[in-house]
């Protein structure tokens, strides 16, 4: 709703202003001592020497639903979008799934999700990036939409995951039906919940065209599900859009992911991501298979069968310490 948007922006902008002002030194500080406050990749300092500094070894794979319409562009798979970034203090990954219904309004659904992810990537490098609060990252990115000369309309789900190197903790924020899964020792230890208003209508960040505000679902970044948990060396983390979760049964995913536990070779990891994505694609185009989507539809009294053709994005990472 418009009011949630304005409230979010107000709170964000006030918070940002107070932290952002450290970027602009008062002149009495002078240029010399200011190096430490520069807003580049110099995040937190070295941290405590000796404690393990985890990092992600991450790869991406995916397919657009409609290969003909969408020429391959880096960072996007059809209407899905993803990003990866890292600083000295954190590794960040995220996916966003553009809601396709906007096509009938003449709006390209992939634009919103792509912008959201690109801005998240840029914001990670800013001085006011907080490695503990992925919700803030999403909120700031959402606010940046207001500041674009080119009007960007549409909506998307989003899932952002931050690995804080200092504390070896992962913080996540999820809005909508994209999600993540953490696998350790052959078991799912953490998983995100789908957020839906009703069947096939996930929570979404949106910017409706002017005049359509009241008619359009618009969830604020504050409504994101957040989780924080520690990670260990060898954990496998998968972030994917609903194209994967709706088509690949969990048992199968678990099987595929447990194989790469502790894997540090990005080539092998890429092969697994590729096979997972291909699996999702094949199953989505299969009209007989009882996919998780079909099962959930039946629970909602809708007779459905087969996979759900959709854009597929797989971001696969392992934690290496």
């Amino acid at each position, binding site marked *: 709703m*418009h009011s949630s*948007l*304005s409230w979010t*922006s*107000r709170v*964000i*902008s*006030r918070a*940002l*202003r*107070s932290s*952002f*002002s450290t*970027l*602009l*030194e*008062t*002149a*009495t500080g*002078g*240029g*010399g001592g*200011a*190096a430490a*406050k*520069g*807003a*580049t990749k110099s995040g937190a300092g070295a941290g405590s020497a000796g404690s393990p500094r985890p990092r992600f070894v991450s790869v991406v794979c995916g397919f657009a639903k409609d290969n003909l319409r969408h020429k391959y562009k880096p960072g996007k798979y059809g209407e899905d979008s993803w990003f990866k970034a890292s600083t000295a203090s954190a590794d960040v990954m995220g996916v966003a799934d553009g809601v396709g219904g906007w096509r009938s309004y003449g709006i390209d659904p992939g634009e919103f999700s792509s912008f959201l992810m690109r*801005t998240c990537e*840029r*914001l990670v*490098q*800013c001085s006011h990036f907080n490695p503990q609060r992925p919700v803030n990252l999403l909120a700031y990115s959402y*606010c*940046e939409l*207001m*500041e*674009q*000369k*080119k*009007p960007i309309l549409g909506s998307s789900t989003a899932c952002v995951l931050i690995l804080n190197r200092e504390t070896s903790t992962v913080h996540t924020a999820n809005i909508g039906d994209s999600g993540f899964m953490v696998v350790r020792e052959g078991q799912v230890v953490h998983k995100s919940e789908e957020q839906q208003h009703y069947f096939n209508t996930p929570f979404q960040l949106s*910017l*409706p*065209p*002017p*005049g359509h*505000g009241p008619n359009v679902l618009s969830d604020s970044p504050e409504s994101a599900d957040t989780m924080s948990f520690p990670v260990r060396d060898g954990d496998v983390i998968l972030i994917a859009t609903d194209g994967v979760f709706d088509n690949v049964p969990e048992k199968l995913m678990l099987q595929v992911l447990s194989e790469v536990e502790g894997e540090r070779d990005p080539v092998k990891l890429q092969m697994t991501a590729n096979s997972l994505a291909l699996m999702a694609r094949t199953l989505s185009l299969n009209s007989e298979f009882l996919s998780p989507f079909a099962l959930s539809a039946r629970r909602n009294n809708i007779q459905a069968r087969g996979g759900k053709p959709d854009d597929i994005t797989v971001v696969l990472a392992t934690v290496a310490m």
Partner: protein
Amino acid sequence: MSLLAYGEPAQSSDTDSTAAEAEADVLVDFTAMLQRQRQGDCGGWFGCDSKMQSAQSDQGYYLEQYVLGVLDFSSQYGIDYSISYTATNVIGRPTKFPAYGDYPETFPMRTYGDWWQRAPSATREIQPQNLPKLETHDYVVVYFEEFVVPTEVAIFETFNPGAVVRIWAYGLTKHWTCLWEATESDLARPPLDSRRFAPALKKTTMVTKTLRIDFNHSRLNYYTEIDAIMLCGRTVSKTQNLLAKQQRTQQSRTLLSPPPEVKDSPPSDGSGGPISYKLRTLKFQPNCGEDGASKLHEFINNDLSQFLADNCVDGGERPPQICLTDLPFEILLRILSYLDLKSLFRVGQVSRTFYDISTHPLLYAEISLKSYWHVASSELLCTLARRATMLRKLDLSWCGGFGNVSPTEFKKFLTQRGDNLTHLRLNSCKFLNASCIENVGIVCDNLIELSLRNCATDPPLLNFSCLANLKNLERLDLFQTYFETELLLSMLEGNRKLKHLNLAFCGVSVNMDNVAAHLATYNTQLISLDLWKAHFLSARGLQSLARLHQLEELDLGWCLREASLGDGLFQLLSNCPKLKKLFLSAVRGTTERDLMHIAALGKNLEQLDLMGILNITHERVYDILVHCPKLQLLDLSFCDNIMDRDFDVLADWSRQFNVDMKSSRR
């Protein structure tokens, strides 16, 4: 008359000794500062080359570095918490270069061309004779990681290149040096393509890691955008030793004999007054100007020497000497009133008579230190305080960075001389703190104009009621400065004659609807109002603004967000027939009806900005062009609806109706 001799003034015997003794400290202040700067600039001028080269032989390596952080900027297009179109985008490597276009990942400034000078809210410069030929409109101060001896500064321009006019560097000796200055030929408009602009810098041995880039947009077609700045140079390994060495060489230099007089060389620090400039381009031809003042001015410049020559008696004895000082005092005062401040100080060194004339308070009724920001200091303020007993207009914009001006000195100055001030400009003054502003409120109650642009500090400066003492304000400029809503509201209530109000970028901390309601009640004489980026202004606020019948300029860029305007715009246009400038950049709630109203009711519109408004059609644009005969500027950038096709039609209309139309295409 002899020009400044480059030696310690205390030792020179050219100048009138009594004057020097009596006011030695005064003479030293301004001129000595400029001298030190000159000496700092001119490296091995005295044949100290060998000494400087030994400093250079510290083993260093060639380094290219990008900006680490931004210390200050005069204006930016975006709001400060954003990373789109803001100054933080110059940090780091270029993100878009060599692509050319209007990208949010770059740094544009708030204005372009001369449209703001043509708007009703335009101001006149204080002491305009101080300004250099290519005056600075905007600047940005950036710092890098390593100290280097600069050999190259490259500025990556990705949109409308050609605005850079000066490059300054801040050295270890805490002085600014101008490394490069644009000449007339440099400003020929470059081709519309991204470019890596790296002008030839002055040879210098200074060590720096802080740069300031000056911009002048007056010839640009649209916003200029900078992607990155690169500083290349040789590092120095032991900066402390180098600093000591440089200070020693400076001292040893001053003991050497002064050089032969330099004849009127163009000052390299960017501020030559109009007279010295004119003397260079003079032709000897009697001129008849319209105005008495310029007639006199031109007579003195052009004909005086001829007149004097004609009046010499042929042959024999000493011809009657008529010199400048025989003219009546008032005439001399008038002549000197055309001089810029620097030349005025120099004139005072000539003789006792000239000293008396040049320190007359009437010459210090208007003081602007904006062009001398790099040498402005507390001592200068002190000196000026002694002379400026009739001070009316003061401009200290851009001064005081890096602690050169102390707040105490400023307050003292204001207490001494501020009670008759009518115009006070303190834009981007870094020395301002809460008690300074308090002083302004208490002392300067005759203020008609108060300009506090870009004084954003944390906690916000303007959060106490002393400014509410000002009751005669006609112009209040709070661009990019944050303050408390209550204070602003009480100021609005108190200043019923307010004509110009600039609240750009203030929309986050202030409830603009309340402000609009107050304006409608108390400030009905308002002529111009700038509410740029007041995102939370609503249709209700717009309706309040419609009650300001004298409004000629209204900048609602980025206001209202997607909120529907209701009939706010219609009411505004109906009730404010004098409206000349209307900016509706990114006011996405503007409907086609609103555009029809603009065409029907905007008879006096001269500047119209419709950037990024959805659903603009060709018909509406044509309507506006036909029905707004005075239109000069129409900005249709990012109106993707009309840009995708028939671009040439728009170009034709632009010619036909003689309107400068901006679009996203090149």
